[in-house]
């Protein structure tokens, strides 16, 4: 490459700096902007913001630098061990006689490397539990507000909005983001966090469902959705999240972190809301079922009631029957006492008829008494007659021994005034009035002497003498 001195003759002499400048010109002129493929190694980030690293393969190593100004536009975050294709300019570092690549852009070196890197991150995040099914939140059946993180323009957002309007018109908030290229991942992650940061009662309605969407593209186009920050933001979203990135066959890491993965953006809209008319129809069916069920329940109860009612005997009839029996019994009761009395009276009469009246008994007894008394009188009469007869028989004999006969013989019975016999002469006191009974009658006499004031009457001895 050196065009200067011919061999073995008059070698030109360079000052060091001249040589350095010449090499620099040669290198930069020959290579200019180049793409170099290699594995990142010896990565160092300096406080100045510049990043130093090396690219290597089996046999060689190339120093490289990423100026601070280039870092945001790199396209990926450099990491040791990642095979990349670096785009930049080759330049020299004259101070140390080295050359280095000034990297402007980094790409993953081919799909294999990219996929390997994605897989490594997937395993790391899965090990953290970010993809656990336990973390999945159920989607609201009818979200009130749907937040969509996607590009504000293009087919994706239009497809989603159209499908939502067809199925169930909802309030939609679009958080506009770049979905590929520089800063896309950061914007997407920030949008997911931003929706979650909305207060419940703020002026901006907080979505109750998020859709993170992007249309189809190359693996590299979809790389923002494999970004760790995006995946972590999706996993930690408090709002249920549907991922809809690329086509059906594309899988990005956000799909693992999402609560639901939609194969396409249109499908995301279908998963987000039910078909309103279907729900209206379902509600109508439920209403009809409830109505017929309650009607059946009421009707069944009514039939049971009617059946039961039929089994109840007719109350008025029941009462009338009872009344009739009561009347009957009452009537029989009324007559019963009369009948009973009549029967008793009859029995009494029968007995009374056999009961003799006291008068009759008295009459009978009196008759018997009279009979007896008659017989008694007869008997008495006969006894008296007998006694009279005996007396009569005895009288002459008595007469013969009585004092009468003595009187007849000339004796007299002296008596005092009281009729008592005076049997003593001393009893005949002067003046004493005496009776002298003779056989043919009585005569009176007075004792001799004067007033009987002294002395003892002595008629008794006289009387005694007389006897």
């Amino acid at each position: 490459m050196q065009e200067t001195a011919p061999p073995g003759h008059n070698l030109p002499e360079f000052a060091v700096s001249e040589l350095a400048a010449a090499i620099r010109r040669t290198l930069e002129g020959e290579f200019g902007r180049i793409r170099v493929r290699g594995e990142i190694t010896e990565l160092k980030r300096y406080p100045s913001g510049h990043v130093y690293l090396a690219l290597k393969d089996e046999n060689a190593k190339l120093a490289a630098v990423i100026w601070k100004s280039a870092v945001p536009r790199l396209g990926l975050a450099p990491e040791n061990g990642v095979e990349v294709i670096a785009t930049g300019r080759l330049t020299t570092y004259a101070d140390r006689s080295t050359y280095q690549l000034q990297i402007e852009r980094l790409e993953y070196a081919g799909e294999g490397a990219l996929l390997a890197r994605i897989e490594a991150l997937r395993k790391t995040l899965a090990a953290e539990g970010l993809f656990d099914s336990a973390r999945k939140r159920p989607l609201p059946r009818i979200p009130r507000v749907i937040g969509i993180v996607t590009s504000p323009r293009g087919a994706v957002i239009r497809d989603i909005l159209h499908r939502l309007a067809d199925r169930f018109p909802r309030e939609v908030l679009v958080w506009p983001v770049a979905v590929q290229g520089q800063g896309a991942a950061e914007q997407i992650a920030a949008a997911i966090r931003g929706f979650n940061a909305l207060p419940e009662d703020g002026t901006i309605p907080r979505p109750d469902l998020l859709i993170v969407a992007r249309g189809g593209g190359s693996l590299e186009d979809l790389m923002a959705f494999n970004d760790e920050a995006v995946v972590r933001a999706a996993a930690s979203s408090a709002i249920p999240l549907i991922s809809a990135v690329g086509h059906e066959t594309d899988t990005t890491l956000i799909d693992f972190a999402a609560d639901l993965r939609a194969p396409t953006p249109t499908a995301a809209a279908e998963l987000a809301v039910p078909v309103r008319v279907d729900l209206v129809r379902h509600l109508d069916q439920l209403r009809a079922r409830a109505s017929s069920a309650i009607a059946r329940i009421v009707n069944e109860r009514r039939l049971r009631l009617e059946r039961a009612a039929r089994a109840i005997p007719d109350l008025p009839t029941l009462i009338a029957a009872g009344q009739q029996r009561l009347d009957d019994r009452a009537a029989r009761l009324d007559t019963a006492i009369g009948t009973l009395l009549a029967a008793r009276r009859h029995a009494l009469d029968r007995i009374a008829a056999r009961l003799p009246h006291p008068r009759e008994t008295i009459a009978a007894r009196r008759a018997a008494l009279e009979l007896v008394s008659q017989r008694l009188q007869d008997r008495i009469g006969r006894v008296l007659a007998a006694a009279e007869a005996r007396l009569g028989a005895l009288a002459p004999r008595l007469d013969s021994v009585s004092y009468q006969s003595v009187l007849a013989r000339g004796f007299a019975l002296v008596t005092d005034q009281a009729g008592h016999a005076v049997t003593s002469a001393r009893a005949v006191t002067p003046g004493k009035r005496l009776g002298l009974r003779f056989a043919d009658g009585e005569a009176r006499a007075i004792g001799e002497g004067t007033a009987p004031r002294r002395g003892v009457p002595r008629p008794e001895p006289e009387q005694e003498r007389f006897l």
Partner: protein
Amino acid sequence: MAVRPEKQRQAEGMADLQGMSFEEALAELEGIVGRLEAGKGSLEEAIRAYERGDALRRHCAAKLAEAQAKVSRIVETGGTASGTEPLDTDA
């Protein structure tokens, strides 16, 4: 069962539904319809369940009625949403 004014009963029936999501209300409604169709329980319970179901259905219908499309885009200031503006997807 005690007869209460229709308005009051509706107010009672709807009061606790206010914060209820559509799916909660629909799930309860479906449960009520299923039990009504099974025909179990007393007549009074059935009628109460029917009234509850009717309130749930009206709640669900109201939720379905609020179907209006409003599309806005977030206006972002420093990573947080500071407001909204109409979205034009064609621009």
